[in-house]
C-alpha cells in the first residue's frame, strides 16, 4: 500500500510537470524546434531581451501590480477596520457579500461587466474614460479588494480590544492609537493581503483582456497575443524565465522564511469556499 501510494504520487507529479519541463528544456534549443535538440544555447533568451515590446509589457505589469495592490490594501485595510467596528450587522453582511461577488463570479463575467461599465461610462461624454492603465487599475483593484479584506479582517477580530482602550486611556488620540497600536498588530495580515494582490494582479489575463487597450499591454496579454497564431520560441524562453523566478520566490518564502506554505496561495485556494 505504501509503495503503491508513493508510485501514484510520483506519477501524478511527473505528469503535472512534464509539459513545463519540456518547455524549459527546449527554451535552450538553438534549433527552435520541438523535433530535435541541436545545441544548447541562450539564443532565444537573447532574442527575448531584444524584443522591446516584451520589456515594456513587463514594466507595465509591475507598475500595474504595485499600484493596484497598494490601492487595494489601503482601501481594504480601512474597510476591515470599519467592518470590525461596525454596529449594524445587516450593513456588515451586505458589504461582505457584495465584496465577495468578484471571487465567486467567473473571471470572464467580471471582465465583461467591467468592460460594459466603462463602455457605458464613455457614452456619458463628460467622463474622460478610455481603455488603458486607468481602467486596468480600477479592475485589478476591484478583484484584489476581497483578498485584502479576507486577510486583514481576521486580524482585527483576533486583536485584544483592551490594548486599544489602554492606549486611549493613556492619552493617545484615536488616530494615533490606530497607527501606533492597531496597525503593528494587523501588519502580518496587511502584508499578506498586499502580496496576494500583487501576485494576482501580475498573473491576471482574463479580466485584463476585456478592459485593456493595445497601448497598455501587460505580460500575460503580450503572451496571449504572441501565442495566438504561431509558435514563437522566444516565448519558451520567457515562460522558462517566469518558471525560474516563481520557483525561486516559492523556495525563498517556504524555506528561508519561517512561516508555513499556507500564507500565500492558500487563501486563493478557498476562493469559492467563502460563499457559505
Amino acid at each position, binding site marked *: 500500500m505504501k509503495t503503491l*501510494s508513493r508510485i*501514484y*504520487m510520483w506519477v*501524478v507529479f511527473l505528469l503535472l510537470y512534464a*509539459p*513545463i519541463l*519540456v*518547455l524549459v528544456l*527546449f527554451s535552450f534549443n538553438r534549433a527552435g524546434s*520541438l523535433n530535435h535538440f541541436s545545441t544548447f544555447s541562450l539564443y532565444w533568451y537573447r532574442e527575448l531581451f531584444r524584443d522591446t515590446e516584451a520589456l515594456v509589457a513587463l514594466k507595465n505589469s509591475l507598475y500595474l501590480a504595485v499600484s493596484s495592490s497598494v490601492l487595494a490594501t489601503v*482601501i*481594504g485595510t*480601512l*474597510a476591515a*477596520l*470599519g467592518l470590525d467596528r461596525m*454596529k449594524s450587522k445587516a450593513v456588515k453582511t451586505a*458589504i461582505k457579500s457584495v*465584496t465577495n461577488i468578484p471571487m*465567486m*463570479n467567473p*473571471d*470572464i*463575467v467580471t471582465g*465583461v*461587466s467591467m468592460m*460594459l*461599465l466603462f463602455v*457605458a461610462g464613455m457614452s456619458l461624454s463628460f467622463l474622460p474614460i478610455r481603455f488603458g492603465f486607468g481602467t486596468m487599475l480600477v*479592475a485589478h483593484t*476591484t478583484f484584489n*479588494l476581497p483578498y485584502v*479584506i*479576507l486577510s486583514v479582517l481576521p486580524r482585527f477580530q483576533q486583536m485584544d480590544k483592551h490594548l486599544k*482602550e489602554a492606549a*486611549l486611556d493613556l492619552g493617545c488620540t484615536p488616530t494615533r492609537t*490606530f497607527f501606533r497600536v492597531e496597525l503593528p498588530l494587523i501588519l502580518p495580515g496587511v502584508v499578506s493581503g498586499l502580496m496576494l494582490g500583487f501576485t494576482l494582479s501580475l*498573473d491576471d489575463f482574463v479580466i485584463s483582456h*476585456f478592459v485593456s487597450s493595445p497601448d497598455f499591454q501587460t505580460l*500575460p496579454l503580450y*503572451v*496571449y497575443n504572441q*501565442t495566438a497564431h504561431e*509558435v514563437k520560441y522566444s516565448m519558451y524562453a520567457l*515562460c522558462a524565465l*517566469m518558471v525560474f523566478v516563481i520557483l525561486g520566490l*516559492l*523556495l525563498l518564502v*517556504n524555506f528561508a522564511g519561517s512561516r*508555513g*506554505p499556507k500564507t500565500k496561495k*492558500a487563501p486563493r*485556494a*478557498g*476562493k*469559492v*469556499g*467563502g*460563499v*457559505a
Partner: protein
Amino acid sequence: MKNRSFLEKAAAVPHAVWAVLFILAPLVIVCYFAFTDSYGTFTFDNISLLTGYTHIFVLSVCFALIATVICLLIGYPLAFFLSRLSPRTQKIFVVLLMLPMWISLLIRTYSLMALLDNGGLLNSLLSALGFAKAKIVGTSGAVILGMVYDFLPYMVLPIYTGLSKLDIHYFEAASDLGCNGVKTLFRVALPLSVPGIVSGVTMVFVPSISTFYISQKLGGGSFDLIGDTIERQFQNVSTYNIGAAISLVMMILILISVAVMNRFSDDEGEEIMV
C-alpha cells in the same frame, strides 16, 4: 464600548463606495445590456436568441463536469496520500503542488499544447518509434485534458488542507475498531472532507466552464464553449447585448450551482478558507 471615533465610522466608506461603483454597477449594466438592443430600447430578443446557443451551454457543462470528476478521482487519493506523509516531506510536496498554480495559465496551456501538437514532442517520439502520429490537439479529449491539467492543483489543495487538519486519532480509532485502510478512507476520511471536496469542485468547475484559452489552444478552433462565445461577442460592438445576455445566464447558472453545493458543506467551508 465607548463611542466610535470618526476614523472608525468613516473607514469602510471608501470601500462601500468602490463596491457600489465597481461591483454592483457593472452587474446592473450587464442586466441593462442583456435586456436592450443596440439602440437602448427594452427587448427580450437577446434572451430568446439564447435558445440558439443551447448546444454550446450543454457542451460546456459536459466538458466542465467531466473535467471536474476526473480531477476529483485523481486529486482525492493524491490529497489523501499527501496528508499521510511526514511533515517535512509534506511541505516539499505542497510547494511542488503550488508551483503550477503560480505559473500563468496561459503558459501551462501553451506548454501542454507544445507537447501534444501535431509537430510536438509526443508525435516526434511516436514517429521515431515507428508508430503513426496521433491527432490529439483539436479533439474533445485534448480540451478536457487541458482543463484537468490546468486545474488539478485547485482540487487537491483544499482537500489536502481539510485532510491534514483531521485528528490523527480518528484513523487510529477506526483501525482499532477493525477498519482496514480502504474502509477507513470511505467511512472516516471521505465524510469528514466534504467541505474540502465542495470547495475543490467549485474551484475546478467554475474556471472550466468559463474558459476560452484552453479551448482555443487545445481544441484547435473546433470547439466553441461558453467562454469562447462570450469572448467573441465582445470583439464587436453590435453583439455586446447578446454577449451580456449569455454572461448573465452563465453567471446565474454558476451562482445557483455554487449555492447548491455549499448546502452540502454547511458552514464548515469557512474553516478551509482561512
